[in-house]
């Protein structure tokens, strides 16, 4: 060390997330061709309204929203703080001869008879126990949270807005309820044997990582996971270890949905997740705050870029009216929150014009009541129009009036009151949109045989053809009206022009037209400079170098903070850089070699040799097989397997230095 020079201890951010397998290739080792797709195995029960019984078993390949599960890395000097900005959870499902009992055939398709299993988010790339922070962008991408918080050793903090947590809880509660209602003792596992699996027909043979698939979590695990979430509000600045500041912004996609700004003093990274510029119920997207970003990580675009949500709502209404007018019933498989609010609002305006005032609308979900009520109380998270209604005071959503006038009725399940009130023709909103479990299965069985009835798919997460596969042959009409309000490519262009980030980082899929529509050059991101793209499981260094760091030098030595009470950062104790380094005093001064050698001799060290080097000196304690390397700005004590000796020598070195 050089006299008069100050060395500051650094924040031990680097001790955080650590790559589990640093030798991972840039491309996923598993399924390069399936980048961005995950498979979900769900099993459905075909149940009679009054006498539930399980009949259908299926495997449903599910197209996941294009890479909403991302691992953006914020590279800050030599530190890595990995921030999980959301987890998609797609119920994923697992498939002969030896496992013939596990497999069932239906209309030429083979399905697995098993309790539903779910594919977890990527766990090989990152040791989740070393992740410090998880940011949840919206309630659709937090469904795997219990798997992470309860089973991976994760001890960090989870941040999310209140509506995200509350509605996320509802979605998980509904899922657990649906699964627990039709218990099945065993999971099918024989088909997962790789030698068997590769002989199975598609899509079973293409399912990836089937061995990692897990059964659904329990409500206890849900509650425990949610208890670890720290609530945040829009524009609230959250300090992360003094290194970066994280801020959630309204993304306009769902109640409480967020985009994130992750910034240091000189760098700003924006993480854009599921966002919408349409005027629907949530607070509008905050674009202004995304300006001046060094890097904008763009994810969560619409899955159906060719489907205009307005047109789809029109299709939905028209087909609904046509069916009901002919005396048929309409089944809408949906989630209990989200687009359903907008659909109900649209129907509220439409039913009178379509002469459907006398048609009952049923919303069946274990969380139907809570969902409808929650939506009315999150006024501050709603769009301006709805917010202003609260002051009138009126309920922000018109579904309150539909309920009041008995046009919309909600039930926790098809049993009980619903059986008494049920009247046809009617419109039923119920889950699960995969058609593998939940009350929707009953209605598929009940109405599937009549061509008067219609099932209208509105959720974009599932392929409707695959969802319907186990129900074939089916007489009822099927309409596909996916309503995905997230950004399309035109909107993205406008957004990027407005926000003007220096660099755009996005999944590879967004940089080329969809494979099925390779001529649609408009269905890709078009920006200058061209976006940096990444594939699944690829680690990218964000395209900026940190040139400056803001420091504050106090004229007086800072008061010594109290020691942390207990092992909050428990795992870190054994890490290379110990936790307490931050609390060490600062040192200055230089070590005069001759005096230092004398001191060593005084303390009983003999056979001391001093060698001059280009940068300083090496003091060699030959007997103790120890080196003390004294350089201009650092001193290293190199002794193997003798901690006591190292500490003694360290203390001797410290005597020559000033502390403050």
């Amino acid at each position: 060390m050089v006299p008069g020079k100050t060395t500051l201890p650094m924040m031990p951010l680097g001790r955080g997330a650590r790559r589990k397998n640093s030798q991972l290739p840039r491309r996923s080792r598993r399924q390069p061709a399936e980048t961005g797709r995950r498979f979900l195995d769900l099993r459905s029960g075909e149940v009679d309204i009054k006498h539930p019984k399980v009949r259908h078993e299926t495997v449903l390949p599910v197209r996941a929203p294009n890479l909403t599960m991302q691992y953006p890395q914020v590279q800050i000097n030599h530190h890595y703080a990995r921030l999980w900005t959301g987890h998609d959870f797609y119920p994923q499902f697992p498939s002969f001869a030896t496992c013939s009992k596990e497999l069932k055939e239906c209309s030429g398709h083979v399905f697995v008879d098993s309790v539903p299993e779910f594919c977890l988010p990527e766990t090989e790339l990152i040791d989740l126990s070393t992740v410090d922070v998880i940011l949840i962008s919206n309630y659709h991408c937090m469904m795997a949270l219990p798997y992470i918080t309860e089973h991976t050793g994760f001890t960090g903090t989870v941040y999310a807005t209140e509506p995200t947590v509350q509605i996320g809880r509802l979605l998980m509660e509904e899922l657990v309820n649906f699964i627990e209602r039709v218990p099945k003792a065993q999971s099918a596992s024989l088909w997962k044997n790789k030698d068997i699996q590769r002989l199975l027909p598609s899509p079973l043979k293409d399912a990836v990582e089937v061995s990692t698939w897990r059964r659904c979590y329990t409500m206890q695990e849900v509650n425990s996971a949610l208890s670890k979430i720290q609530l945040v509000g829009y524009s609230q600045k959250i300090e992360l270890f003094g290194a970066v500041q994280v801020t959630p912004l309204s993304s306009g996609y769902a109640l409480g949905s967020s985009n994130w700004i992750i910034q240091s003093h000189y760098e700003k990274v924006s993480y854009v997740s599921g966002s919408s510029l349409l005027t629907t119920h949530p607070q509008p997207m905050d674009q202004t705050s995304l300006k001046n970003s060094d890097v904008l990580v763009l994810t969560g675009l619409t899955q159906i870029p060719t489907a205009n949500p307005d047109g789809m709502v029109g299709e939905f209404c028209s087909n609904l009216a046509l069916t009901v007018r002919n005396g048929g019933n309409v089944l809408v498989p949906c989630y209990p929150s989200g687009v359903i609010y907008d659909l109900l609002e649209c129907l509220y305006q439409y039913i009178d014009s379509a002469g459907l005032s006398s048609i009952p609308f049923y919303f069946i979900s274990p969380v139907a009541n809570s969902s409808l009520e929650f939506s009315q109380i999150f006024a501050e998270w709603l769009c301006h129009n709805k917010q202003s209604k609260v002051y009138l005071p009126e309920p922000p959503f018109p579904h309150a009036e539909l309920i009041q006038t008995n046009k919309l009725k909600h039930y926790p399940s098809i049993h009980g009151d619903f059986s008494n009130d049920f009247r046809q023709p009617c419109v039923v909103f119920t889950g699960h949109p995969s058609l593998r479990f939940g009350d929707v299965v009953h209605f598929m069985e009940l109405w599937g045989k009549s061509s008067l009835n219609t099932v209208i798919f509105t959720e974009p997460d599932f392929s409707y053809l695959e969802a319907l596969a186990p129900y074939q042959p089916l007489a009822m009409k099927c309409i596909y009206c996916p309503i995905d309000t997230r950004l399309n490519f035109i909107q993205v262009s406008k957004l990027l022009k407005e926000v003007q980030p220096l660099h755009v980082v996005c999944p590879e899929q967004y940089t080329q037209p969809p494979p099925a529509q390779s001529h649609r050059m408009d269905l890709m991101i078009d920006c200058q400079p061209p976006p940096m793209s990444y594939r699944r499981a690829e680690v990218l260094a964000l395209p900026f170098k940190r040139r400056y760091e803001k420091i504050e030098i106090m004229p007086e030595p800072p008061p010594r903070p109290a020691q942390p009470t207990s092992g909050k950062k428990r795992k870190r104790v054994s890490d290379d850089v110990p936790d307490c380094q931050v609390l060490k005093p600062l040192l200055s001064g230089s070590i005069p070699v001759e005096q230092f050698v004398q001191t060593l001799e005084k303390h009983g060290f003999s056979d001391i040799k001093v060698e001059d080097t280009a940068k300083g000196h090496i003091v060699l304690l030959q007997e103790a097989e120890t080196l003390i390397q004294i350089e201009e700005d650092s001193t290293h004590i190199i002794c193997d397997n003798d901690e006591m000796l190292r500490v003694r020598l360290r203390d001797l070195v410290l005597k020559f230095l000033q502390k403050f």
Partner: protein
Amino acid sequence: MDPECARLLPALCAVLADPSQAVADDTCLEKLLDWFKTVTEAGSSLLLLQENPCLVDLLTHVLDLKPQNVSPRVLSFSLCLAGTFAAQEDCFEYLQQGQLLLGLFGEAGPLSWAAWSVPIVRSGWIRGLRSLAQHPSALHFLGDSGAVDALFSLQGDSSLFVASAASQLLVHILALSMQGKAAGSSSLQGSAWPACAQKIVDHVEACLCSTAAPQVTQALNVLTTTFGRCHNPWTEVLWGQLGPLVAHLLENEPIPAAHSLVDLLLSVARSPVFASADCGLWETTARMLSCLSPSQAGPLALGTLKLQNCPQALRSQAFGVLLQPLVCILRATAQAPGPPGVLDETTEGSSMTVDTLLSSKSACVGLLCQTLAHLEELQPLPQRPLHWPQTLLVEAAVIILKLCEGSVAPSSSEGGRLCGALAGCVRVQRAALDFLGTLSQGATSQELMLQVFAVLLETLESPASSPTVLKKAFQATLRWLLDSSLPPSSLDLGLPAPLFLKELFPVLQKRLCSPCWEVRDSALEFLTHLTACWGGEADFREVLLASEVPKLTWQLLRDPESYVRASAVTAMGRLSSQGLQAASESSGHLEVQQGLVGELLHILSVDSEGFPRRAVARVFTEWLRDSHADVARDTEWFVATVLPMVSRDLDWEVRAQGLELVQVFLAQTLGQSSPHCPYVVTLPKASPPSPLPEVLRTLCQLQVFDFAFRALFDCDRPVAQKACDLLLFLKDKTAPCSGLQEPGESSDVTSVEATLQRWQAGEQGQPLSTLEPKEVLAALRSMDLEGLQSRLAESSDHVEKSPQSLLQDVLATVAVLEENVADCY
């Protein structure tokens, strides 16, 4: 001038001259100017000024006021007024004597005042000069006063109106100064031009040589107006002199003021002076067509094709320019680009077109919309090229629509970029649908027709189609269905249109259920038109009745949107006329029909909006005229039910339509009205269906007269006019019955007349006692219906439009303003 006006004039002039009394309304001053113009055109201006010295006093006073005290409006008015008076040479001299004109229009006048910065003053100055520039004295004045120089600078005025007026005045001065020289064009060569004209021509020449684009534009604008208005031989000399300069502009890169240049060329080409002479015009046009950008060349190409006397080669080149974008689209999407001849002509310059199409989305959309609009305009014209490439155009329209739908997969990279630019573009979709609609009249192969119907169906089906696109798609579909000259009876032949119908109806059903009212409305209108044309065709009937369409249409009678209810009423009326109303399984035809009449009566009596009620009244009239089965069964009941409703309706159009219904009823009961022309050959008069007294009694019972008499005094003139015509018809028809009137029974008429008088006075609530035929006849005879008819024929503002009332209005306005000022204190 009207003595009463002459009496009011001094007060008016005093008001205008008083800076403290602001005239609030500009339109009053404009009306005054119009009136003065009428007065001066009818008589001597000089005499007018001498008889009304207050007018000259006003002008003098305006000049005498301190410039800052003059209201810009009054100053502008005074300038225009002075110009109007000075249009007559003697009056011009009179005003000049007092140096009044020089004061107003000279360099020391308003030109140098602060008020000159107000555009209305500059505009008034130009208008004044425009009015006075009618005679040689004026020309000298213009030259001497420096006005022409001022006009040159005003061409670049910040106000477009002023700039345009200045440019037009320059043309007017040029034309005026050349007036006497028109006879011998040869004498105009060289320096033989009059000074004023020479000055203007020199200025234009200088501007054409300028490097500044605005100056070139100004010069081109002056020339465009000149060749557009003046068709004298000297214009040929002018073009001979300036044409080379204009042609020289084409050598610049980029070409300055391209739009103005196009306008000029077309203006010259349209001038009859150049009908036989070439003068290098066609050569310049051909050069321009090849060197302008595709979007600039489009209007020139269209204009050229519209010309009668254009050389064939140039026509082909122009048509090639128009076709280029479409050919490029077809090539890029690897479609067969029409007959080889067309291709060859359009290869030249196609790279520039491709560049434009691919340069940006907005450029691509702009060029395509313009091209489609130009071709649509050209299609019905007799001047359109003889070899009209119908196939190419239809193919191009189809492919453009597919590109907009995103349903075409071009293999080339250009095609991909076009697809990216056009996918979801509503503007191009609308233009292409309009264009495709106009192409329905040409001969199209069956295969191509299939493609047309497929793309129309795709557009109609697509959830992404906006309401305006759907409306256009319905319109285009209708035209193709009706113009494809394939009656639906050829259903078995497998021809496109009938097959298309089967696929169309499910789409129509869906659109009738659209949450967007505009879409429901467009679908209903389409249904109405289609039924009107094909309602009698068995196969159409079969497809229609097999669908849910009639039922859905019925349900839309209760739509919350009034426009949709109105369209549903019209559609149901049409369906019912053709016996295509919805027949539910439970009820028979009769019940359905009774139900429909009842439903329409319900709408007529309770609907809060006018549109549906008007539609019902129209449908009922049509039903009565066409002897619709359900109306013909008991016409009297029908009329008796409908009349009380329409007569009390708040909407005048419903009342007028009610009178129309009565007229149809009377024509059926009493026979058509006799022709007015005595020489018209008519068939021998058939005797009325019933004896006249009986008919009269029926009419009285149906309260037809009650309705007609009330309508006679309706506050809305069209209703009163119709009622008057109706009563005149009745008077004519009942003339043979006048013998029914016994002497001494006139007392009955008195009470009727008394009631009518009260109605006329506005007391419409006054009931009319039950009328007897005799009373009616007497009343008809005693009323001056002919007089009333001529009074009603006069415009409703004939009283208020008189100059006297105008003067009174201006004075009254000022008086009111004064009162308000007083109130303030």
